């Protein structure tokens, strides 16, 4: 075991004192944080201040916008028609982003034209439609009925069919958790791919520069292989750990300085809501309107997800790492390695696809099977863990992890047999037949 550890430490040191590794420690989290920033921003689209000019020649709206769903849209009115060309080019109108033409027929044909400059987000479109529609409703109710506007809106309210899972009656879960699980699974896959290929290339390099013959004269090939898998795995974990810290700091920074408006304490919300503070009510809504923020900070049970992620990461890495190491030991040339790593890469992509499939069709039999197949289970386990297992079916997680653990041991056994026989072979062309011969051979 000591030899395994010495080899692992050499691998670890060789990797973490590498300039590209150190560079990736910083660039990786920065990239992810930038992506997260844009994701939140994209989710927060339409928050740009818009200035809307309403041309109301019939003075139907009487210069009033009664409801302001979106605080960042300012409305102005103009009497009479406004020529589109004049709005487009007129100096006085350049400050307006949107022109809405509400002509006299609007009460009959329910049609208004909206002209905008540049791009108008769907969020802004919805807000404008909501505001104008509400005002037109008020005018129509006043003009054509004896109902109060509140009564009308009560009548107009559609039936809300709220579909809830019996295991999640409060609707705490959504597909979003599944997608977070998919991201966790994707991180596992990416690390397996990058560091698995690194194991393969490392062994191939040691074969080609012949140091391997010196090593196996001192260390049993099985120990050499384990040391490599362990060392590369530790460097992967180091990277993951460093990334987690940097990303954690990044999210803390986002929470306090960049997206601070999304975060207010629950106590404060309750207190202010009781006092009917509309502004804070709006903020409370924002907190729940921003799906990404809500998901990351509120809905995921990270105390469960993170340990499961760690276990799945390690087991998945060992399973695939053993595979990559046996290919590394078996190859006789660089092209062999590329050729034989393609099936592994396809398996990993398939695992990601199954992860996505398990979000869309969680009850499908394919997902039920792939949950236990070690090639795909790391991603499916993460998706299902983030979604949450139904009560009484938590044992499925234990079974999946146990199968993955067992498969990793079996894979290590097969890999060590092939490694022992293949690592001293040079200059040949690797074939499936050769792998089987090595697997059966006692060296």
């Amino acid at each position: 075991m000591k030899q395994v550890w010495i080899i692992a430490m050499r691998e670890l040191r060789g990797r973490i004192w590498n300039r590209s590794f150190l560079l990736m420690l910083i660039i990786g989290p920065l990239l992810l944080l930038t992506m997260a920033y844009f994701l939140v921003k994209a989710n927060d689209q339409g928050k740009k201040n818009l200035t809307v000019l309403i041309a109301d020649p019939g003075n139907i709206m009487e210069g009033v916008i009664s409801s302001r769903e979106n605080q960042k849209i300012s409305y102005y009115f103009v009497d009479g028609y406004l020529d589109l060309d004049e709005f487009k080019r007129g100096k006085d109108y350049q400050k307006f982003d949107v022109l809405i033409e509400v002509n006299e027929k609007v009460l009959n044909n329910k049609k208004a034209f909206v002209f905008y400059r540049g791009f108008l987000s769907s969020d802004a479109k919805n807000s404008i439609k909501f505001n104008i529609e509400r005002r037109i409703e008020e005018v129509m109710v006043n003009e054509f009925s004896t109902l109060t506007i509140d009564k009308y809106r009560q009548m107009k309210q559609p039936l809300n069919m709220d579909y809830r899972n019996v295991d999640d009656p409060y609707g705490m879960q959504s597909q979003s958790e599944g997608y977070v699980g998919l991201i966790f699974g994707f991180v596992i896959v990416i690390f397996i791919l990058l560091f698995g290929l690194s194991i393969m290339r490392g062994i191939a390099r040691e074969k080609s520069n012949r140091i391997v013959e010196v090593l196996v004269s001192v260390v049993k090939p099985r120990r050499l292989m384990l040391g490599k898998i362990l060392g590369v795995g530790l460097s992967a974990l180091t990277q993951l750990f460093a990334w987690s810290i940097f990303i954690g700091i990044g999210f803390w920074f986002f929470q306090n300085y960049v997206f601070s408006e999304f975060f207010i304490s629950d106590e404060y919300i309750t207190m202010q809501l009781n006092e009917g503070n509309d502004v804070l009510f709006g903020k409370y809504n924002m907190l729940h309107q921003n799906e990404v923020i809500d998901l990351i900070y509120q809905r995921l049970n990270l105390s469960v997800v993170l340990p499961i992620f760690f276990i799945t990461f390690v087991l998945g890495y060992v399973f695939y790492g053993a595979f990559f190491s046996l290919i590394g030991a078996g190859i006789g040339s660089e092209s062999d390695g590329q050729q034989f790593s393609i099936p592994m890469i396809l398996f990993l992509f398939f695992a990601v696809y199954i992860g996505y499939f398990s979000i869309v069709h969680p009850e499908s039999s394919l997902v039920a099977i792939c949950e236990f197949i070690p090639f795909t289970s790391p991603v499916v386990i993460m998706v299902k863990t983030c979604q949450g297992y139904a009560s009484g079916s938590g044992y499925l997680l234990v079974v999946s992890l146990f199968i993955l653990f067992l498969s990793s041991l079996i894979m290590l056994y097969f890999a060590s047999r092939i490694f022992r026989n293949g690592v001293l072979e040079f200059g040949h062309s690797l074939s499936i037949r050769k792998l089987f011969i090595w697997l059966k051979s006692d060296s």
Partner: protein
Amino acid sequence: MIEIFEVSKSYQRNVALNNLSAEIPRGQITGLLGPNGAGKTTLIRIINQMLIPNTGYLKYDGKFLNHSHLRLMGYLPEERGLYKSMTVGDQLSFLCRLRGMTRAEGSAQIRHWLDKFNISDWRGKKIESLSKGMAQKIQFIAALVHDPEFIILDEPLSGFDPINVDLIMSELLDLKDQGKTILLSTHNMQSVQDMCSHILLLNDGTKIADSSFSELSQNHQSSQFVVRYRGTKIAFANSLWTDFELLDQHEVTSDLFEASLAQRGDRSVDDLIGNIKGHVSIEAVSRKRLNMQEIFLELVNANKPLE
């Protein structure tokens, strides 16, 4: 020290070693010889436990060879390699630690060997910055740095210039004097003749010689004679009749000649002396000694499989 009992090894249909039994004696340099493909590397790998024989077994000091013996062995493979991005010190320290030494023990040994080869200032250099010859020296040290009692060297002299060949050879003789056992696989017959006291010769996976060099030399005598005489060249040549073939002769000093003769048929030294006695004055008659190269060729050619 190492006893090999009826060891056979095949790679699918190719027989690399065929029922080999031999002994590598303690405290001697044993030359492991044989043409390419004779099974030398296979035997070395079996001793190193990189390969498991199909049949047979090995003993190390009377005990069945096992993995714990690897720490007592040093190995310099023919195809050499080092971690290019590591420094000389780190590389040697890594190998010392793999062989069970503590950091301090390893560090002391590394210092000893680097000092011995006058290359202490290389310790912090990366392997990739060394020339081929410099890297060869580090590889040689890597095989010995843990002070093994049994050293396996596969072509240790290849890649060295004559000065370093001399250095390595004298180092090997030093190690022998210290009581180390060395298995030397090489095609450099001169070095075998100069250093090896025991020869193990393989051909097509089969042992064709396993004895001391003097014994081998004794058993493989030349069919040539060297005669020193005083007299005339014509009288000497006439005395040979058709029993011996005159290959070469030259004057050593005035009136003293040395002639090389080839034996014909089953003529003996007595026949030679009988022939020339009375024609010239005989100073000395000896059978020419075969060198290792000639013994090797004779043995291998004699054991060539029939086509």
